[in-house]
């Protein structure tokens, strides 16, 4: 019996990354799979992470503002 899979949840963190919980398939625009190395991942949305598509905290250094979203 398989447990029902919970819907993935994406939290747009104020002035920070997109926090992704739950199972999602992640791939590059070229179709290459990107392996998440942890159950909950943070995706860069400020554009300056050195480990894209993941967040490395750099948004703090550039004072990225998500304008309340």
């Amino acid at each position: 019996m398989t447990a029902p899979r919970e819907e993935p949840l994406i939290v747009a963190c104020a002035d920070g990354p997109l926090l992704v919980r739950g199972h999602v398939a992640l791939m590059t625009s070229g179709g290459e799979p990107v392996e998440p190395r942890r159950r909950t991942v943070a995706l860069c949305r400020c554009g300056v992470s050195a480990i894209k598509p993941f967040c490395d905290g750099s948004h703090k250094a550039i004072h990225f503002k998500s304008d309340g979203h």
Partner: protein
Amino acid sequence: MVGAMTPRITARGPVSQALQTAFRHAATLDSPEMARVVELAGVALEEERDLLTDDDLQLALFMIYGLSYGDTVDADDEWEWNPQLVRARRLIERCFEAQLRARIPVDDLPEPDAEHVAAFLFALTQEDGGPGLSRYIARTASREQLLEFVIQRSIYTRKEADPHSWAIPRLTGRAKAAIVEVQSDEYGAGRPQRIHAEIFARTMRALGLDDAYGAYVDEVPAITLASFTMMSMFGLNRGLRGAVAGHLAAFEMTSSIPNRFYGNGFRRLGYGDDVTEYYDEHVEADAVHEQIAGRDLAGGLAEQHPELLEDIVFGAKACLYVDGLAGQHMLDCWQAGRSSLRAGVAVAA
């Protein structure tokens, strides 16, 4: 076998000396040896010494908490909850906490909702420029200094995440789910080789260092012990559950960017992935953890218990303050051309 896994610990004064003596005796209710520890601790505390830099009392507290953690002191398990031992522990803890609160004023509080608390803590941790330790490591530190840095950090990092885990059963709902989510990642999410403390052990071994817990405890100064005993005190006392939540949030918020610099420092001197894996892992992991710890743990707890807000902020500021002092100690020593360790330890460089 008792003692097989515990480090050699050298007493640093009368209290830690008496504690070692007591640990060699039976953990009886009226142990005269532990009564002596209580008496000597009382005398030492009356002198109003600075507990953050007091080698004797910090080592005593480190040994006392070692009873709860394991692998730290060679003593009968019965000592952990021996009433006299607990009396000595509370004497030192009360004074330690009072000194921290006196030095770390909490005069400004956010609204007690998750978003405001997270924004407040992010701003607080960003203002804290820190001692520039991570930049020094990245650009300037010598091979010997990098080894010292790893030795200093090993007191906490070989037990990484454990001090905060004591808080889990004291939390509920959103705050509990958040701390478990963070700690599960710290503990490798079911994969023992991914436990952060074990990744750090690989770093130590790759540098030719002894990864046994506390192998270098004799070499680290009181302020390094204080960083670990403070978070242990926050975690082990239910009354400080606000402080432990704030501490973890601030710790995570001051981690991902410095860890990139630490990794760069080791790469600069030619070290490979076996050494830098720990630091590289934390760049990505702590960018996740800081969001969860700031918003869902600290913020979630403030929403549930607004009366804990002051302690949440206190715990965050205490993390910045004490870890700032520990980092500044290393920088000051290195810039003066000295070792940051107590007695220049011979390490294979």
